[in-house]
C-alpha cells in the first residue's frame, strides 16, 4: 500500500506540453480516478506513474520516496492496459504467472498464486487457453489477474472497461469496487467516462489541458465544481449555462431578477443542473423545444429568455414540443462562475421574498 | 548480459543495438561508395593497382565522342523500359487471374513464383539451352510450324539478342509484380464490387473504377522498385549475352564490370559506376516530381 504524491509534474513531447505542472497528494488505499476528455494528459500522467514515460520536470513519490529514476519493473506496481496487452503466445496461466516468473518466485508458489487469482476472477476453466481464444470480458479478467497475482502496492488501470459492452461494463465496475474494498490497495484509474469516476472512486482528479482542474471526492466534484470545465464535464445531462449580471445585490438573468446575492456588481455565469429545475405553475416561462425519452424519465430542453436549460420530467410526461411551461430553481442550487476565467464564485444566494417581484422563480 | 543492460537506460541501449549494423553497413556500403567516387578521379591499372590522378578526365572520356556512356545508357533504357512494361502487363494480368476462383489455386500461385526465386544462373542456363541454335526448343518449334526457315542465332545477332534479353527478363521478374498486386487485390472488400454492380457497372468499368484505383498505389511502388532493379541488373544480361553481339546489349552495369576486370581500367570503371548512379538518381527525382505533380 502506498500513498502517491505528485510535485509540479510536467511532461513535454517535442514542443507540446501534455502535462503542465500537476500537484497532487493521494492517501494510501485510495481509489483515484484521473478523469478528463481525450487528449487531456491523463494517460500520460498514468504512464509516468508506471515509469513508461519519464517526467520532463517535477517529481513522483510513492510512500514519500521519489521514484522518478526507478524502472517500471521495480516500482512494485501493476498495470491493466486499455488493450489488455496480454502476451499472445502465452496461455492464460503463463500470462498470469509472468510477473512472478520475472521476480524469481519458485514454480510451486507461482502455480498456487495463479490458481488463487484464477479462482477469484473465475478463470480456472480457461487457464490453458490463449488470449485470442477468449472473449473481451475474459481477456479483461486475465489482464486483471496478471495485475492481481503479484499483490503490488499500486494498481494502475488505463480505461480498462472501454472495450466492453454496456452490461459487462457495469458488472465489471462493481467487481472492481469490490476488489478494491477487499484488497485495499491504492488504485489509479484513468477514464473519460464520468459515470465510472462517480461510481467507483474515493478521489477524483479532473484534468483538462494538462492541468489539474479539481481534486476531491466524487460528491465534492459534483456538488461544488471548481470551474466551468469541471461543471460541464461532470453530470448527465450537462449543466446549462447562462450569462447573468449582479446589480445592487440582485442576480439578474436577461435583465430580470432571479435571486438575492451577496456579491459585488458585475457579469457572472450562472450554471443550472437539470435535476434542480422544477416544472411549476409559476416561474420562468419557456418553450419545450426538444424532448428525449430515456426510459425512466424524459429530458426536456426548455428555451426562453433566460437561455436554454435542461429539465427532468417523469417518463409519463404529457407535454409535447412547442408547449409553454414555467420552471423554477432554488437559488441555493445555482452555480456561479467568473465569466472570464471560468472559476467558481461563491456567494450567498437567497430567494427574493418581496411579493411584488413575482417573476422570481 | 541482461543485468548489465538493465542499468543502461533507453538512451544508450537503442544506439548500442544499431551500432553493429551501422558499423557493418559503413564498411560494406558507405566506405565502398565513397571509395568508388574517389577512385573515379584516378586512372588505375587493375593487375598492378598502380594509379595516377586524372581529376575529371575519366568522366570527360566516357561522356565524350569515344566514350561508351551514351550508347550504353540508350541500351539500358531500352532494356529497362521494355522489360518493365512486359513485367507490369503480364504481372497485373496474372494477378487478376490468380485472384479468381481457380482449380488448384494455391498450387498455381506457387508455380508462378518459381522464375523469380530460381537463381539467375539456372534461368539463364535453361534459356540458353532453349535458344541453342541446333538443338534448342525455340528454333525447332518455330521451324516446325514454319515461322523461320533456318535456325536463328538468338543471342548472337541483333535485334533478336536484345529481344531475347528483354523477354527472359520479363519472364524472370514478372512474379514480383504478381505477388505485390495479388496481395493488394485480396484486401479489396467485395462490397466495393457489389456496390459497383448495383450501380450497373460492367466487368470493364468495375476493373477501371474499382480495381485500378485500389492497386494504383502498389503499382506505383512496384514500378519504381522494378525500374531501379532492372536498370542495375547485371547477372541476367551478362550471363545471357555477355553484352554482345559487340556492344549491342551492353548495359551500364556490364560496362562497369568490363572496364574493371576485362579492360583493367578500375578508375574508368568507377567513373562509369558513379555516372550510372547519378543517372539513376536523376530519374528517381523525375519520378518523384511526376508523382507529386499528379497528386
Amino acid at each position, binding site marked *: 500500500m502506498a500513498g502517491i504524491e505528485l510535485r509540479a509534474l510536467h511532461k513535454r513531447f517535442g514542443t507540446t506540453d501534455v502535462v503542465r505542472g500537476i500537484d497532487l497528494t493521494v492517501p494510501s488505499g485510495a481509489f483515484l480516478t484521473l478523469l478528463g476528455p481525450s487528449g487531456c494528459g491523463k494517460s500520460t500522467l498514468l504512464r509516468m506513474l508506471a515509469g513508461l514515460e519519464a517526467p520532463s520536470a517535477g517529481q513522483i513519490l510513492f510512500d514519500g520516496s521519489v521514484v522518478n529514476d526507478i524502472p517500471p519493473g521495480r516500482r512494485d506496481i501493476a498495470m491493466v492496459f486499455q488493450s489488455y496487452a496480454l502476451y499472445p503466445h502465452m496461455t492464460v496461466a503463463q500470462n498470469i504467472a509472468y510477473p512472478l516468473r520475472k521476480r524469481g518466485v519458485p514454480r510451486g508458489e507461482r502455480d498456487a498464486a495463479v490458481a488463487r487469482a484464477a479462482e477469484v476472477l473465475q478463470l480456472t476453466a480457461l487457464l490453458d487457453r490463449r488470449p485470442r481464444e477468449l472473449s473481451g470480458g475474459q481477456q479483461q479478467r486475465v489482464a486483471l489477474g496478471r495485475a492481481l497475482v503479484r499483490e503490488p502496492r499500486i494498481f494502475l488501470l488505463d480505461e480498462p472497461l472501454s472495450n466492453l459492452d454496456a452490461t459487462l461494463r457495469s458488472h465489471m465496475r462493481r467487481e472492481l469496487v469490490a476488489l478494491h474494498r477487499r484488497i485495499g490497495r491504492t488504485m489509479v484509474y484513468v477514464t473519460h467516462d464520468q459515470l465510472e469516476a462517480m461510481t467507483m472512486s474515493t478521489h477524483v482528479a479532473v484534468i483538462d489541458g494538462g492541468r489539474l482542474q479539481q481534486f476531491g471526492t466524487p460528491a465534492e466534484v459534483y456538488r461544488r465544481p471548481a470551474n466551468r470545465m469541471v461543471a460541464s464535464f461532470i453530470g448527465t445531462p450537462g449543466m446549462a449555462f447562462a450569462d447573468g449580471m449582479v446589480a445592487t445585490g440582485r442576480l439578474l438573468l436577461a435583465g430580470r431578477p432571479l435571486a438575492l446575492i451577496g456579491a459585488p456588481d458585475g457579469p457572472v455565469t450562472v450554471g443550472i443542473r437539470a435535476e434542480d429545475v422544477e416544472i411549476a405553475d409559476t416561474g420562468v416561462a419557456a418553450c419545450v423545444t426538444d424532448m428525449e425519452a430515456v426510459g425512466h424519465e424524459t429530458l426536456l430542453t426548455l428555451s426562453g429568455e433566460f437561455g436554454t436549460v435542461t429539465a427532468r420530467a417523469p417518463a409519463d410526461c404529457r407535454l409535447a414540443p412547442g408547449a409553454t411551461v414555467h420552471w423554477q430553481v432554488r437559488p441555493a442550487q445555482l452555480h456561479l462562475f467568473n465569466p472570464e476565467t471560468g472559476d467558481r464564485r461563491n456567494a450567498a444566494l437567497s430567494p427574493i421574498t418581496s411579493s411584488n417581484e413575482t417573476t422570481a422563480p | 548480459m541482461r543485468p548489465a543492460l538493465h542499468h543502461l537506460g533507453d538512451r544508450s541501449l537503442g544506439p548500442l543495438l544499431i551500432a553493429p549494423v551501422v558499423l557493418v553497413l559503413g564498411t560494406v556500403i558507405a566506405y565502398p561508395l565513397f571509395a568508388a567516387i574517389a577512385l573515379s578521379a584516378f586512372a588505375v591499372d587493375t593487375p598492378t593497382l598502380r594509379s595516377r590522378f586524372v581529376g575529371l578526365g575519366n568522366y570527360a572520356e566516357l561522356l565524350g565522342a569515344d566514350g561508351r556512356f551514351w550508347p550504353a545508357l540508350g541500351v539500358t533504357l531500352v532494356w529497362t523500359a521494355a522489360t518493365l512494361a512486359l513485367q507490369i502487363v503480364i504481372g497485373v494480368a496474372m494477378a487478376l487471374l490468380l485472384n479468381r476462383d481457380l482449380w488448384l489455386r494455391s498450387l*498455381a500461385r506457387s508455380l508462378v513464383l518459381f522464375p523469380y*526465386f530460381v537463381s539467375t544462373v539456372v534461368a539463364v*542456363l535453361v534459356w540458353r539451352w532453349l535458344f541453342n541454335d541446333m538443338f534448342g526448343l525455340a528454333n525447332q518449334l518455330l521451324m516446325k510450324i514454319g515461322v523461320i526457315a533456318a535456325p536463328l542465332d538468338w543471342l548472337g545477332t541483333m535485334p533478336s539478342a536484345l529481344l531475347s534479353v528483354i523477354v527472359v527478363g520479363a519472364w524472370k521478374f514478372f512474379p514480383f509484380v504478381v505477388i*505485390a498486386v495479388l496481395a*493488394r487485390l485480396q484486401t479489396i472488400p467485395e462490397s466495393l464490387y457489389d456496390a459497383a454492380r448495383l450501380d450497373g457497372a460492367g466487368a470493364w468499368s468495375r476493373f477501371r473504377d474499382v480495381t485500378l484505383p485500389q492497386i494504383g498505389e502498389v503499382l506505383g511502388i512496384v514500378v519504381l522498385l522494378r525500374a531501379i532493379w532492372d536498370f542495375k541488373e547485371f*547477372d541476367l544480361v551478362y550471363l545471357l549475352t555477355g553484352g554482345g553481339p559487340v556492344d549491342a546489349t551492353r548495359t551500364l552495369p556490364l560496362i562497369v564490370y568490363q572496364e574493371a576486370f576485362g579492360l583493367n581500367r578500375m578508375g574508368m570503371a568507377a567513373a562509369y559506376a558513379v555516372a550510372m*548512379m547519378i543517372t539513376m538518381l536523376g530519374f528517381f527525382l523525375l519520378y518523384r516530381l511526376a508523382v507529386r505533380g499528379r497528386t
Partner: protein
Amino acid sequence: MSPRLARTGWSLLAWSLILLVAGPLLWMVATSLKSEDEVFSLEPTLLPVEPTLEHYAVLLTETAFPAYFANSVVIATATTTVVVVLAVLGAFSLARFRYRGREAIASAVLLCYMLPSVVLIIPLYLLMVRLGLANTIASLVIAYTSFALPYALWLLRTFMAAVPVEIEQAALIDGASRMGAFFDVLLPQVLPGIISTALFTFILAWNEFLFALVLVNADDVRPLTTGVMTMLVSGFNIEWSLLMAASVMMSVPLIIILAFLQGHLVRGFGAGAVKG
C-alpha cells in the same frame, strides 16, 4: 454463362499460362533426365523416352559440383545467421527506441537497398585484396551482408512496428528488463517475420552471382552460381543434360522452400517490398 462454366474457362486459361511460365523449368527437368542421344535429337520429345539418372550420377561423382554445393550451403547459412542476428537487434532499435539520428539511419538503410552492386564491387574487391580476404568464404559472407542486411532490417522493422508496443510495456511493468521484454514478448511475436527474413536472405545469398564472380577465383571456395558457369565454359563441348541436372540440383533448396514455406515468403514480400 453459368458460374461453373466460367470457373472452368478461367481455370483453363490460367493453367495454360502457368504451364507456359513454368515450361522452361519443366524442360530443364526433362532434359536432365534424357540420355545424350535424346538431348541432341532433331525430333525432340517432351518427356524423356528412357529416363536416366546418369547425369546426376556424373554430376555428383565426377565433377566439382558437390564441393560447390557445400560451399554454397556454408556461405548462405553463414550470411543468413549474421544478417538475421544483426537485423533483429537493429530493427528492434529502429522500431522501439527514440534517439538522435534514428530516422537518418533508417533512410540510409532504405537508400542502401537501392544501391547498384556494381558501384560497390570495385572498392570491395580492393578492400578484400588488401585485407587478404580475396578467395575466401568470409569475403563472400561480408559482401553478401551488404545487400541482404538493408532488406532484412527494413523487413523486420515493418514486422516489429506491427506488434503493439503495449505488450512490451506490460512486460516491463511485470518486472522484465528492456532486453528481457524483447526476448520474452516481442521476439515470439515476430518469429514469422524472422523466418521470412531468414528465407529471403538465404535465397539471395544462394543465388548471388556478381560478387562471387569478382571476389572468388578458386574452386575450393567457389559457390554454385559461378561454379556451374565454370562447368559451362570449361567443357570442350557443352553437356546440356549435365548442366540441366546441375540446375535442377541447385534449385532443390528453393523447391523445398516454395513447397513448404511459401506463405512465409509471400508475407515477407508484402511487408518489405510493398509497404516499404
